[in-house]
């Protein structure tokens, strides 16, 4: 198993009222290397929290998460974030050119310039970015284009597990379909596992693999993507 969750939960305390409530509770599932998984649920179901736990921006209150059978907390944090990365819903691009955004993760890893250039052009192509975009300032890009840059930026660092938070939310349905198609292909070519969250069920079977349903922080269904039940 690439990833395994055991009874994972995350509890928060409302600072104003002191009330505690569970954002996620008793979550258990696994993911094999190269596999795709869609996490489906309405907003507020805990999808983003789950991704934040996986990339260790937050800690679970209960249970444990294993990556390659080692608890996340036992991974040196730098190695962990070299194995998996997260594409945020809003893209969260850095001010500067597309090229600077793509190069960032590689520069952190100390890649030599020539190799870095090659890698970022390749990732740009895979994420569907035309080469002439590379020198554009990100401020000139549309919402959908920014999403593509964020994806390319994540692909550059060659994660074994790519996490995407609502990648289709800001795209029209044609663009969204292209993106899902691209992710399914990338996953196969790179044998990269993909977890994405969505509240739009139509993309789940297109991505393939497996799916799970989250409702109010709890797992209500899991199975093959094609078998995802219709919305009740």
């Amino acid at each position: 198993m690439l990833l395994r969750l055991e009874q994972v939960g995350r509890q928060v305390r409302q600072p104003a009222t002191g009330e505690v409530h569970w954002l996620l509770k008793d979550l258990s599932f696994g993911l094999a290397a190269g596999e795709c998984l869609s996490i489906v649920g309405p907003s507020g179901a805990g999808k983003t929290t789950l991704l934040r736990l996986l990339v260790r921006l937050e800690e679970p209150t209960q249970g444990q998460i294993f990556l390659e059978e080692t608890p996340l907390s036992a991974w040196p944090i730098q190695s962990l974030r070299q194995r998996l990365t997260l594409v945020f819903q809003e893209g969260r691009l850095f001010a500067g050119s597309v090229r600077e955004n793509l190069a960032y993760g590689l520069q952190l890893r100390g890649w030599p310039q020539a190799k870095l250039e090659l890698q970022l052009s390749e990732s740009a192509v895979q994420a569907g970015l035309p080469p002439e975009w590379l020198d554009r300032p990100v401020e000139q890009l549309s919402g959908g284009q920014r999403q593509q840059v964020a994806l390319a930026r994540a692909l550059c660092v060659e994660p074994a597990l790519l996490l995407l938070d609502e990648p289709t939310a800001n795209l029209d349905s044609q663009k969204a379909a292209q993106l899902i198609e691209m992710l399914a292909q990338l996953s196969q070519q790179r044998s990269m596992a993909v977890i994405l969250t969505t509240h739009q069920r139509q993309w789940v079977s297109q991505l393939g693999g497996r799916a799970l349903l989250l409702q109010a922080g709890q797992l209500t269904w899991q199975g093959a993507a094609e078998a995802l039940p219709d919305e009740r």
Partner: protein
Amino acid sequence: MEAINPSWTDLSRSLGLIGVVLGLSVWQRLGVTQDLLVATLRTVVQLLLVGLILKSVFELESAWAELGILLLMGSIAALEAANRLGVPLLQSLPTLAGAIFLASGLTLVYVMQVIIHPPIWYDPHYVIPVAGMVLGNAMNAAALSAERLYATLQTLRPEIEARLVLGASPSQVCAPHVRTALRAGLIPTINSMMVVGVVSLPGAMTGQILAGADPTVAAKYQIVVMLMLAFTNAVTALLVTSMLSRRCFTPAWQLRLPGEP
């Protein structure tokens, strides 16, 4: 020239000035009459008290008593700086106190031992007023740079997290923001160095001239004061931003600002 020692009668006449302000406040219904009264009272009481305390410390001629006063002044400066931040006191006070004491201590030792070298090395006539200026500046620099750093990290949280998940370490993420906070902390110092003596005479220089000193001597002291305060500000801001920015991240490279669970 001998310094003129204002008599108590002279001093009470200065109340006439504030009386005019009080009258203005009542006449124009400014709503600050009570505050003005309290502030006037505090000014009189606090300064007379400080004068008395300093006088007795000077007469004691004890390095220990002086050290006690310095520690008290430094602690008050640290508390005041931490209080201004509006974050849980325990999360910022140790860092701010450390930065204020270290930066001020370095400044004080250098100024006393390398520049002024008074005949008695701990002579409180020199040490205490210089320490007052240094600590006051360190306090402002610490509060301003900490405030600025917290505000920046808070505003840029989305971007910082995006960098973290790509594998950046907290120090890599923070380096530009530490620089920004430092630069912002230095700008007021630079500005005041630009206009010093042109628009108004600085307090220390004014005091010396009033006390009968040769204006050129007063100017030399003021140069030392300006340069030493620039040093204190820069070192305090550097220590505060670099230490606090580290404390804003967990060992797992998660951004946790003060007060967050």
